[in-house]
């Protein structure tokens, strides 16, 4: 037993050290360089700044008429609405797709799989959105984000539902549960771990999405956080210090969301094991 404990401690140490070296180091690099002046940052070194220029962060906020603030608001709305929509529509779809194995379902499966493969057709999408008068609206953007993530999320839910025994539902059905409450009461609560995964992955993915808002939600009032990187990434005038400061700034919210939901995954897992 003692040997086992020592082994675990060794695992702890090796795991922590390698994780920090491999995965944290680059962020340290960004952070250090975000506090330098332009020339110093341009040397791309790990050395501490000669002088800590905290005002770089202020500059980032002030750039382009405080566009960073507008961008934060837009990105949050876009992310929250899209993720909520995705959880609802994809858990339902994944459920039915996993449980029913008939012709219709394999066609639907096929169609959804194509969505994983084909890069979206941007101009025709704009054309459709204009026809529906949702181009350049938050609603339209949310719909596009949902449409693009549906294949991935449905697949996640479908895969996860495969590990839930069917007997539960059959029992519920015999007890006279309605279809909707069968799903809502019995299945959905069991999906917590995968829902936490979906939340994190999609929140991060949509919050960090760069190209889609560029096409489907143009206009300075509609800017999202990733677009603010362009303020500091000129073709003719890179400023690494401000660029990294902006990167750090727009990563912080995701870090917070992640820290909170990271716990949720663990809770979900604990709940799952208690249930067994």
């Amino acid at each position, binding site marked *: 037993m003692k040997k086992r404990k020592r082994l675990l401690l060794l695992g702890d140490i090796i795991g922590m050290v390698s994780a920090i070296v491999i995965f944290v180091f680059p962020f340290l690099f960004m952070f250090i360089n975000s506090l330098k002046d332009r020339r110093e940052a341009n040397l791309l070194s790990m050395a501490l700044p000669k002088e800590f220029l905290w005002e770089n962060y202020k500059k980032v906020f002030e750039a382009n008429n405080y566009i960073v603030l507008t961008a934060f608001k837009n990105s949050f709305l876009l992310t929250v609405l899209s993720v909520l929509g995705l959880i609802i529509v994809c858990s339902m779809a994944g459920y039915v797709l996993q449980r029913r194995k008939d012709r219709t379902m394999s066609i639907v499966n096929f169609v959804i799989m194509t969505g994983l*493969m084909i890069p979206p*057709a941007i101009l025709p999408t704009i054309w459709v959105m204009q026809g529906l008068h949702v181009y350049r609206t938050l609603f339209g953007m949310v*719909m596009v984000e949902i449409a693009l993530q549906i294949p991935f999320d449905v697949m996640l839910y479908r895969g996860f539902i495969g590990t839930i025994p069917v007997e539960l539902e059959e029992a519920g059905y015999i007890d006279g549960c309605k279809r909707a409450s069968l799903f809502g009461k019995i299945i959905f609560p069991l999906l917590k771990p995968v829902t936490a995964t979906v939340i994190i992955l999609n929140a991060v993915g949509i919050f960090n999405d760069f190209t889609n808002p560029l096409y489907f939600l143009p206009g300075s009032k509609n800017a999202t956080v990733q677009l603010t990187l362009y303020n500091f990434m000129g073709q003719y005038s890179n400023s690494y210090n401000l660029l990294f400061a902006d990167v750090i700034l727009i990563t912080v919210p995701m870090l917070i969301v992640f820290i909170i939901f990271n716990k949720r995954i663990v809770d979900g897992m604990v709940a799952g094991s208690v249930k067994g």
Partner: protein
Amino acid sequence: MNKKKIYSTWFLAPAMLIFLIFFIIPMITSLFFSMTVWDFKNFTFVGLDNFKMFFSERSLNIGIKNTLIYAVLTSGLKVILAFLIAVFLSSAIRTKNIIRSIVFFPNLVSTIAIGITFTAFMHPSKGIFNKVIEFFGGTGIDWLGNINLALFSVIATDVWKGVSIATVIYVAGIASIDKTFYEAASIDGASGWQRLKSITIPLCRPAMNSVIILSFIGGMRSFDLIWAMTGGGPGFATDVMASIVYKQYAAGFYGLSTAGNVIMFVLIAVLAFPLQKFLLSKEVD
């Protein structure tokens, strides 16, 4: 029991409706536009000329080769590395939650920022990587400038960034395995390796399949990191299908680029559907 009754098709409706309007319809229209010279307002029908022109693209051969290398290597590495990390994180070590969070870190940052940072690390004279190599007495490597190496440098970065998603999927999969299996196994005196081989691997098969398919397809159509790090260069050395299509799109050759999209779709479908079929057939038994 009537399956159709419990599992109503209506559950599918919201997802399918959104998917249809904002993805499938644009895609079908794009099939038509791939046979035109198009500037959004006006188009001229040219039949299969775009496809001919796309196939005569000089960098196409290298693009297809790179796409396959990229997809196979990134997905292969993610499948293996993420599994090892996930098993490690599902053990009894105390710091597993912290480590899992740390591994997820890169995923919180946008691809462009990652690309810029690693391009900086890989700078041949100023970059940290070469500084470290030189510190230990080696000679620096031109990570992104050497045309034989550049693609692999980007692949390594992609794995670094993307391994966390695969890890999360595995962790979720392993966590959903009924703990009683393990209890039974340890009563039977099974070793750690035996438990891994006969419980963990088979029972997290669905998770593994998701990882394989997602990272393979993701690798086939991905180019954002390549774009941020090399722009397809030096020259065309790191071009992939998606970057060729994107460049044509950016140049305003909408018809031509759409034709490239169609070809790319066919290529992916030819590889991915059989792969998925194979994996699902394994999952059933």
